[in-house]
């Protein structure tokens, strides 16, 4: 079937041009200064120095990381039980529940996020309900709470589905063996179910953390114009202030942070599995 090999060549060319070249452009812009001619560019670290020497940007970076970590932890804590309950349920009910989790994912993220703008208003649904109990109104919209809520809402289905997939692959006979050997439910969960679901947890964490740390429309819609995360800084560098070099440097910093956190998560996964194997 060697004659079919030629069919790959156009795509190899395409992906070098459309995937690799744009990535290289980001690196190139990040290490050069605005105004330099592309052909005679001078390598400089000024963009990185500017970012790390400005306390405003450091604060933005810290806040972005904090929001992303908090979102990931909340998605895990809230999502794990959901995945577990779905995996435990049977037949048609399981199919229904998975469908119910998936439907919102198919609806445009901006549409779903916009809905919260009304719900979280000072006179919105939540404050009206709280008002019945004589509480509030609490200002919800344009706070950290609103941003984290929006992120959890948008990204938790990824976590649930990943953990659910891992849990449904679990061989039931392990659990039977454990209970035969006298383990109670808690013990068999901690020693068998949870360690074996870790690959799902890890890919869930990746799928939540990655969009959370780079998100820019959720903070803008629910955090208001003053709420700035690293994604918003990149957006404004490219679409309003037009400093592509600085914007590229920031996205490179973000990409490195993501790579490091992925590496740490993978490492944790390995040690976790080893303990599970003992």
């Amino acid at each position: 079937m060697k004659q079919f090999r030629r069919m790959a060549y156009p795509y190899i060319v395409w992906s070098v041009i459309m995937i690799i070249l744009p990535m290289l452009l980001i690196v190139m812009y990040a290490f050069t200064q605005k105004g330099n001619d592309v052909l005679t560019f001078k390598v400089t670290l000024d963009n990185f120095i500017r970012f790390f020497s400005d306390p405003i940007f450091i604060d933005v970076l810290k806040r972005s990381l904090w929001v992303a970590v908090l979102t990931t932890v909340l998605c895990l804590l809230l999502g794990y039980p959901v995945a577990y309950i779905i995996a435990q349920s049977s037949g048609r009910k399981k199919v229904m529940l998975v469908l119910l989790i998936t439907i919102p994912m198919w609806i445009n993220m901006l549409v779903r996020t916009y809905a919260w703008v009304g719900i979280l208003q000072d006179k919105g649904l939540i404050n009206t309900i709280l008002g019945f109990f004589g509480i509030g109104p609490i200002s919800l919209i344009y706070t950290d709470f609103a941003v984290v809520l929006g992120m959890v809402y948008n990204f938790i289905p990824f976590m649930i589905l990943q953990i659910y997939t891992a849990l449904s692959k679990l061989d039931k006979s392990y659990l039977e063996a454990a209970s035969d050997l006298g383990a109670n439910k808690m013990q068999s969960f901690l020693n068998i179910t949870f360690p074996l679901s870790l690959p799902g947890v890890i890919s869930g964490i990746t799928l939540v953390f990655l969009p959370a740390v780079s998100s820019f429309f959720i903070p803008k819609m629910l955090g208001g114009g003053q709420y700035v995360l690293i994604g918003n800084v990149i957006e404004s560098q490219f679409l309003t202030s037009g400093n592509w070099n600085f914007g590229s440097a920031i996205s490179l910093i973000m990409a490195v942070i993501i790579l490091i956190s992925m590496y740490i998560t993978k490492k944790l996964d390995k040690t976790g599995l080893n303990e599970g194997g003992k």
Partner: protein
Amino acid sequence: MKESRKILSKIYMVMIMAFFYLPILYTVVFSFNSGRSLTRFDGFSLRWYEKMFSDSNMMKAIFYTIIIALLATAISTVAGTIAAIGLSNCKKLVRGTMEQVNNLPLTNPDIVTAIGLLMFFSMLGLEKGFVTMLLAHVMFCIPYVMLSVMPKLRSLDPNLADAALDLGATPWQALTKVIVPQIMPGIISGALVAFTMSFDDFIISYFVTGNGINNISILVYTMSKRVNPSINALSTLIILIITLVLVLMNVIPMFKEWKEKKEKEKQQEESAAIK
């Protein structure tokens, strides 16, 4: 003890589902609001739907979203399938490298892909607009198509194409009459994923478009800066269509199964009667 745990898990699931569906319900309800408010329901009206259908910007955005999604799906499905068939016959090194390259747009944050493309298009001197948006969509859709076609190719018997060629088929015939029909389920699911990815995309489109070419996501984003209930009408329309499609997609196989079962029973009855 067991009962209480069951009730607890039921309550938890109901709460989670409320969390999932409350905003969607809220959007639908307020799309019928006669007032402008997002928090107070003044009475039923179709005012915002009328406004949506008479708003040329909204209609244009819907049009571009659909056109781009259809074109991107068609192009990326064909290109992705061809590339996948080609790569599956390549040496392991080439295949592995290309799989890594393909993973880049899937694992990179969208914003990184977006700014890369933005700078790339401007380097080429392409004007931001329809063409750049379509190219970007094709670029991020192809990997999804390949991702769903590749496993089907891997499970294909490698002797199948050779057998067709030995029996006198031209390579083109072997391809279209033997290989493609075998991997059709992968191609179809790849096309579906590509369509939804293109239809829902915001970040990449937002960075690479210009000249007034918007899709629905960009429109919602730019309009959400002011209170505008026609967004709710548009959202409700999208929610309705997607829910309908998803439910149908899940119900039709169930219905088919039921029908087949019936037919089998009928056949059994008939054969029993003949006996």
